[in-house]
Structures are given as structure tokens and as C-alpha cells.
């Protein structure tokens, strides 16, 4: 529209323009609608995968869901092969992982958040933790193979596996500890100092107590990760066919606890699954599916608990 056009045609062209604008708005609204459909589909895909994965495992493996599957050793005949050594091995490795990762991770988190001075040295540790979280798990396996198995001569044992997985989940524990400590207001600490508490008294009696839930969330997520992790343990050279149990940690003679199990050979659930999966015999694939279903249920339960816990904590916090 130019300023010197007569009145009536201008009105007509405005009306024509208006139609064009309306058509454009319609088109854009349609685009909006189409994209939200595509977005919903993309979202569904993630959800559907999880469902398909789970249903597929159950369908393939349901024949093995009986008590015998848990109380039998692995065998050359698929229908007699069980998970006994694998779940016992997993439980013992998890125990070592917990003992290694939790005190160390929480202590490191406390140091970085409460004690560390702001200088290049603290920055170095921070960058390190971030980078460690991005190191592929199999590289931890190589570290364990070179350092724990051969240099420290711990062998392909439960102790080696526990230490390896402990180091692997250390960044997860450190990060969750720091995040939950950071959420605590300074006023809590100042109140402690005001009544004459030392730094450690404040940290131990107040900071640590209040961040307990957040730390627990991180620990559970870390342990779930360790439970499902197979690459580093394969790299250590863990045997895949184990038809014995490690010596019992609790004995009937004093002092009632022995540590022989730490140096015992072992297998864990994901390794057992990998072993069955890589056999050409189809019958073993059923065992693999059943094992997969068990691993997925346990890890989903653990992660679900952690997510629920975090949600509860977020909701309940009133500083």
C-alpha cells in the first residue's frame, strides 16, 4: 500500500491482506499442532522402548522364573542352569563397592563443598571429578586389570571388582553429596558456629544430617549403576563359568567373620547374562532373557526409589 492510493481500493487490499494474514495464522497454528504431535511421538518412543524391552524380556524368559533358577549353579544344559553363583557374586561385589565408594565419596564431597579453599588446587579436583564421570566404564576395567590385578596382585577377585566399581561410581556419590550440601542455607552453619561448635561439629552434626536424603539418592543411583555394569568386570578377566560359591563371610567359629571371600573368584548377574547371550544355543538365550528381566527389575526399583526419594525431599524442604 502506498500513501497516494485512493481510499476504497485501499480498504479492499486491507481486507485481502487480512485474509492472507488469517491464512498465515492458520498455517502457523497448524505447524504448532503438527509439531506438538511429533514431540509427543518422540516422547512416546522413549516410553515405548522401555516397555517393549521389558515385555520382550519377560516373554522370552518367563519359563525360567522359578525358585530353582535362583538356587542352581550354571550348567552346560540350559534348563538346569541357574543364577546362584551370579546373584551371590553380585551381592558380595556390591557390598565391597558400597564400603569403598560411600565413605570416600561423601568425604570428598564434604571436603570440596565445606573445606576446600578457592584456588587452582580445588579447581583441579573439581575438573577431575567432572572428567571422571565421562570416562567410559571399560577404561576403569583397564585400570583395574593393570593396577589391581597385576601390580597390586589382588587377582581376579571380588575385592578387585568391588574396588573397580567403587571408583566407577565415586563421581556419582561425590556430585550428589555436593548438590545436597549446597542446598543447605548458610544460616544453619552460622547458628552452629555461634554456639561455639567447631567446623567438624557443624559439618557432622548439621550439614551431614540435613543432606542425608540427597546423599542416599546418589548412593542408590550409583549402586544401581554398579549392579548393571559389565564391561569393567569382563575386562578384569572375571570367569564366566563359576560353579561354586565364595567362602561364607560369616563362620560358626570365632571371630565369626572371615575375609577369604574377598579373594575368591566370582561372577555377577550381567556377566552371567552376557555369557548366556553369547552362546549360539537358543536355549541359553531364554536364560539370558530371564536374567535380563531380573536385572532390569532390580535396577528400575533402585532408581525408582531414588527418584521418589528425591521428589519427597524436594517437596518437604522448608528452609
Amino acid at each position, binding site marked *: 500500500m502506498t500513501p497516494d492510493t485512493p481510499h476504497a481500493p485501499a480498504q479492499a487490499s486491507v481486507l485481502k491482506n487480512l485474509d492472507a494474514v488469517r491464512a498465515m495464522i492458520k498455517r*502457523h497454528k497448524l*505447524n*504448532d499442532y503438527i*509439531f*506438538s504431535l511429533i*514431540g*509427543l511421538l*518422540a*516422547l512416546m*518412543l*522413549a*516410553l515405548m522402548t*522401555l516397555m517393549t*524391552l521389558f515385555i520382550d*524380556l519377560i516373554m522370552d524368559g518367563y519359563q525360567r522364573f522359578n525358585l530353582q533358577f535362583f538356587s542352581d549353579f550354571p550348567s552346560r544344559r540350559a534348563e538346569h542352569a541357574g543364577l546362584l553363583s551370579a546373584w551371590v557374586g553380585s551381592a558380595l561385589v556390591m557390598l565391597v563397592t558400597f564400603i569403598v565408594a560411600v*565413605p570416600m565419596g561423601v*568425604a*570428598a564431597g564434604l*571436603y570440596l563443598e565445606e*573445606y*576446600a579453599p578457592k584456588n587452582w588446587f580445588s579447581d583441579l*579436583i573439581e575438573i*577431575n*571429578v567432572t*572428567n571422571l564421570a*565421562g*570416562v*567410559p566404564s*571399560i*577404561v*576403569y576395567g583397564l*585400570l583395574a586389570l*593393570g*593396577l589391581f590385578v597385576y601390580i597390586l596382585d589382588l587377582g581376579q577377585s571380588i575385592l578387585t571388582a568391588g574396588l573397580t566399581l567403587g571408583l566407577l561410581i*565415586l*563421581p556419582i556419590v*561425590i556430585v550428589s553429596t555436593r548438590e545436597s550440601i549446597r542446598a543447605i542455607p548458610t544460616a544453619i552453619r552460622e547458628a552452629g558456629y555461634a554456639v561455639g561448635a*567447631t*567446623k*567438624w561439629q557443624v559439618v557432622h552434626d548439621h550439614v551431614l544430617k540435613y543432606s542425608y536424603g540427597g546423599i542416599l539418592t546418589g548412593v542408590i*543411583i550409583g549402586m*544401581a549403576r554398579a549392579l*548393571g555394569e*559389565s*564391561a569393567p568386570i*569382563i*575386562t578384569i578377566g572375571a570367569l564366566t563359568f563359576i560353579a561354586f560359591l565364595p567362602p561364607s563371610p560369616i563362620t560358626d567359629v570365632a571371630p565369626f567373620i572371615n575375609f577369604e571371600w574377598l579373594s575368591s573368584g566370582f561372577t555377577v548377574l*550381567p556377566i552371567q*547374562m*552376557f555369557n548366556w*547371550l*553369547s552362546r549360539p544355543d537358543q536355549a541359553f538365550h531364554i536364560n539370558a*532373557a530371564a536374567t*535380563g528381566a531380573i*536385572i*532390569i527389575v532390580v*535396577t*528400575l526399583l533402585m532408581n*525408582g526409589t531414588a*527418584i521418589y526419594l528425591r521428589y519427597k525431599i524436594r517437596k518437604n524442604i522448608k528452609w
Partner: protein
Amino acid sequence: MNMATTVLNQSFKNAISPRLAKNVRRNIKERVIEFILMIAALSAVATTLSIVAVLLYESLSFFKTVSIVDFFTDTQWTPLFEDAHYGIMPLVSGTLTTSAVALAVAIPIGTITAIYLSEFASHKTRETVKPILELLVGVPTIVFGYFALLFLTPILQKAFPDLPGFNMLSAGIVMGIMIVPYIASVAEDAMRAVPMSMREGSYAMGATRFQTALRVVTPAAISGIVAAYILGISRAVGETMVVAVAAGQQPIVSFNPMESAATITAYIVQVALGDLPHGSIGYQSIFAAGLVLMAMTLCFNILGHVIRKKYREYY
């Protein structure tokens, strides 16, 4: 120590009031605790250093036998054969091909999911979906390996009858699905960090949600989104079990995803299962392969963090 000093010390000790003496003990205790905590924090640094040291040490012995030029130029990787060749190229090509397939799946789906969650979804949808995405991140990779080998490959074989039982396509697709939640959540964080006023400005001009998302929010969050992609690549490169189970074991130089090929990680698993004697060239070769893997992921990780830091400073 003579008598006089002992007496002197004794009297000093008496002179210090009990409260002050307790204070000294308190201070020592505080120092000790701080020291212990610092040692724990240093364990992270120690882990990194030991990883680098172990990889370098074993790789150095490896490179005493194998020339570093051959390592990067030879197109055959057969360290366990009579006629041994040590060219890392086949393993790198396998790794890159599976990662490329994974990204071709993960980048579009991840980005769309992120845009939808950040710009379109209601608060309630977002609060329900995010935990589910987190659950998907927690699924053990061996289970995804099962899925690739025994669920996806048979389906793909119906579409492509020539597809071998072990192939990079199926492993790559499953790996892609695996990293979708990761890319989606990092990219969504970046988009949510874009200030609300920018969206409001766009809406005030009459733009639709889709236009705002595409032309205002995405460009503003682009460095965070790119960082998500790069961290996703690093994940795909380091992923082990899916490719070890479903992609095959033959080290060949091929960028065709319909073929079967070994990746760096799959090779390490294969050797570790074979129980090679400590100190043999085969044993050392997995450390050299690990060093290459570590270098690749480290580059991507650092790049990703640098890009992500940049956008954080922007607002």
C-alpha cells in the same frame, strides 16, 4: 631430657587451664579430620592419574614392538594372529560407524523431545516424563545388547534380507535410543535456562509456540544443545556391551552399517574374555586401544564442557 625441663613442662601443663587444653585437642582433631577429607577428595585425582599412568605404561611397552606409524596407518588389526598387524584404523572405523548411526537416531529424537518438553509440554507432563527418562538412563547396557541382538536384528533382517546376524546398524540404533534421554535432558536444561522474557517478547510479536521454539529459544540455547550432542558422541564412542554383543568381532575398515565390524570397546572385551597371558603383545594391545578410546572421549568431553560453560556465562 633432664630433670629441670620435665619439671618446667609439668608446671606449664598445670598452668594451662583445662578449657584451653581441651581447645588444643580440639584443634588437632579438626586438622586431622580436614586432612582425612582432603585425602578422600584427592582420590579422584589419584584415580585419573592411575588411569593415565596404567594406559601409558602398558602402551609404551606395546609401542616398543609396534611402530607408531604402523599403528595409525595399517589397515589391518590382527594382533592375535600368526601374521600380526597392528593398525587401529579398523577399530576406529567400527567405533565411528556405530556412533554415527547412534547419533543419526539420537540427535533428531533427542532434540525434538527436548523442545517438546521445554516449550510445549505442560508442567505435569514434564514432571511425569523426566523421571521416566531418568529410568531409561539407568537400564543396564547389557540388556540393551540383548535387545539389539535378539529383538531388533531379526526385525531388521525382515526388511533387509542380506543383513548379517551381527551388524553395526542394529547396535547403532539401539545405542542411539539409549542416549536419547541423555541428549534430551542436557538439551532441555539448556533451553530452560533461556530467560522467560525472550519468549514473552516473541509471543508479544504474535509468534506461535513453534516459531518461538525454533527461532528464539533454540538459537539462544544452541551452545548447550551442541554440548549435549558432543557429550552424546562421547557416550556412544565409549559404549561397550551393546556393540560387543550385537556388532560383531571382525576388525575391518568399513563405514557401511549393514556390515559386521568390531569397535575399540568390543575388541577389548574380546581379548579380556580370551584370558591372554600378562605381558604378551595381545595383552598390551588392549591398553593401546584403550588409550585411543580414552583420548577420543576426553576430547569430546572437554569440548562439550567448554561449550556448555560458554552459554552459562552468557546470561
